[in-house]
């Protein structure tokens, strides 16, 4: 606390805040990662790679930025989140459970008959899921619709969305990008989970995404780039986005399979569950990290 507000004082304050932020959010990320691996391992199917790459993004949204009420999931003033890359559902479910939307016990029933946790997000079955996704390239449009609807009714709530690299090859993403830019939807913030891999291999070998920031800027978006595994960078970007008069794209540079050595940057773990033995190994690795 420097009464003069000198630059040195501010940086000390900032450093303290950052440390506090890390101390609060990083253990949650670690717990979510552990949950994700166990959920998919027990389910015997699912998408570990792209679930692990977006953990920090989801944790920063639900535990730092978004105004939401787990006990009242339909609170009209809540900020909304849309998981456009719906196959990362395990990460969303783990975060929703830890935020208090439902019991963590539900997580171990992922993808089972009768479970509230479907293979891809289902707004009618899972509290906290804002809209059903799974077929790629549609969630960002839905997020635009939410942002437009909230704007029409002068509701100050904000809308957040997460899209994937491979998903960016869907034309619908760019239709949504154009609409959001045109309407200057400043209440919309999207993340790109830029892990550079997709099912068939590296994006640059499948179909290159080109100059991603330039593309989004040309569609009328504010663009920021962050280390998608650094909670401080993500939180700062989210703060900054609130001041924007345009929609914001936060390109988060991430590692597919982050946090489990044998899954990191391993294309095969896009949509393959670990065996039970691999699961145990991965869980120990996360616990010891």
């Amino acid at each position, binding site marked *: 606390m420097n009464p003069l507000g000198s630059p040195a004082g501010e940086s000390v304050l900032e450093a303290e805040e950052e440390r506090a932020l890390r101390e609060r959010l990083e253990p949650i990320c670690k717990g979510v990662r552990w949950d994700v691996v166990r959920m998919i391992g027990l389910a015997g199917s699912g998408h570990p790679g792209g679930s692990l790459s977006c953990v920090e993004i989801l944790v920063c949204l639900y535990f730092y930025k978004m105004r939401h009420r787990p006990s009242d999931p339909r609170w009209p003033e809540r900020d909304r989140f849309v998981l456009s890359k719906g196959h990362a559902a395990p990460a969303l479910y783990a975060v929703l459970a830890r935020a208090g939307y439902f019991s963590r016990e539900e997580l171990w029933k992922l993808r089972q008959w009768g479970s509230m946790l479907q293979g891809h997000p289902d707004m009618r079955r899972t509290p906290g899921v804002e*809209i*059903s996704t799974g077929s790629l390239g*549609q969630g960002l*449009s*839905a997020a635009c*619709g939410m942002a*437009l609807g909230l704007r029409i009714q002068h509701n100050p709530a904000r809308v957040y969305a997460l899209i994937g690299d491979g998903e960016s090859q869907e034309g619908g993403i760019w*239709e*949504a990008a154009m609409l959001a830019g045109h309407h200057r939807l400043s209440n919309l913030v999207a993340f790109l989970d830029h892990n550079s891999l997709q099912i068939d291999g590296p994006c640059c070998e499948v179909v290159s995404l080109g100059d991603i920031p330039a593309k989004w800027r040309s569609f009328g978006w504010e663009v920021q780039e962050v280390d998608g595994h650094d909670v401080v960078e993500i939180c700062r970007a989210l703060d900054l986005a609130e001041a924007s008069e345009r929609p914001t794209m936060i390109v988060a540079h991430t590692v597919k399979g982050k946090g489990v050595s044998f899954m990191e940057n391993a294309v095969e773990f896009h949509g393959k569950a670990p065996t039970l033995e691999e699961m145990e190994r991965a869980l120990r690795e996360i616990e010891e990290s």
Partner: protein
Amino acid sequence: MIPDKGSKHTRDAYAEALLELGEKDHRIVVMDADLAKSTQTERFKERFPERFIDCGVAEQNLMATAAGLATTGKIVFASSFAMFATGRAYDQVRNTIAYSHLNVKICATHGGITVGEDGSSHQALEDVALMRLIPGMRVVVPADYYEAREAVKAVAYLEGPFYIRLGRPKFPVLFDEDYRFRLGKAVMMRPGRDVTILACGIMVYNSLVAAEILAGEGIEAEVLNVHTIKPLDEEAILASASKTGRVVTCEDHSILGGLGGAVAELLSEKLPVPLRRVGIRDRFGASGGVEELMEHYGLTPGHVAEAARSVLGRAA
């Protein structure tokens, strides 16, 4: 004789219903995909610009954005041509609107071969079938201006997704100002005992003309306006079919999967009686005038009458 009440556009009915709805309910939001002049949603845009969203030529975005809007408590009417609303955006309609049973009313114009000169790329002949296959989607094909207007007003306050199919040309007027639309309840247009004619859309009028022709030959045709393809009015259809023992379906749509398909499914399971389907026989459309196309694709009153004679086992 069928009283001559002139003819009017079903899309004008749509526009007027939207204005009425928009006036009294601020939750009504209308969306289009660069066809507002054709679908007539432009009239809503002029009156309520803050509640009108044009997505540009991007029908997939139109449907998924409509879904998002609906989650904020809006009653969303999403319009385009039938071809693009159902074909181009099928995945969005199925997965993002219908799977979550969201409050989006898809009101498409330019359904059927009667689109005319624009030709095959713009003539949706499968749209009713596509929409009927989606769980929870209700499908309405109005027969005239008044039925279209009342159907639009009715579906606004029925929760969940709807597909309303309107036409490009003027449809002969069959009803009056006081017509009341009841979802899933077929309308008895003309009673008869020899053969049942089930029709929707512009083919209701043609079926009534056909019934006149048949009456001249001593055949009493019963004509039912089956405006709701889903949920189908099974009770009325089975009652009429059990009375006449002969059924003809008539639609400006493929004979596969639409009214004819739905009726065939119903009758084959519950009351197998001879059936003839009047409609597009698994072909693409083509350019031409409306009258010419109806002649070439077999949709005239003469074709309906011929199908009735055929199902009765009588030569022309």
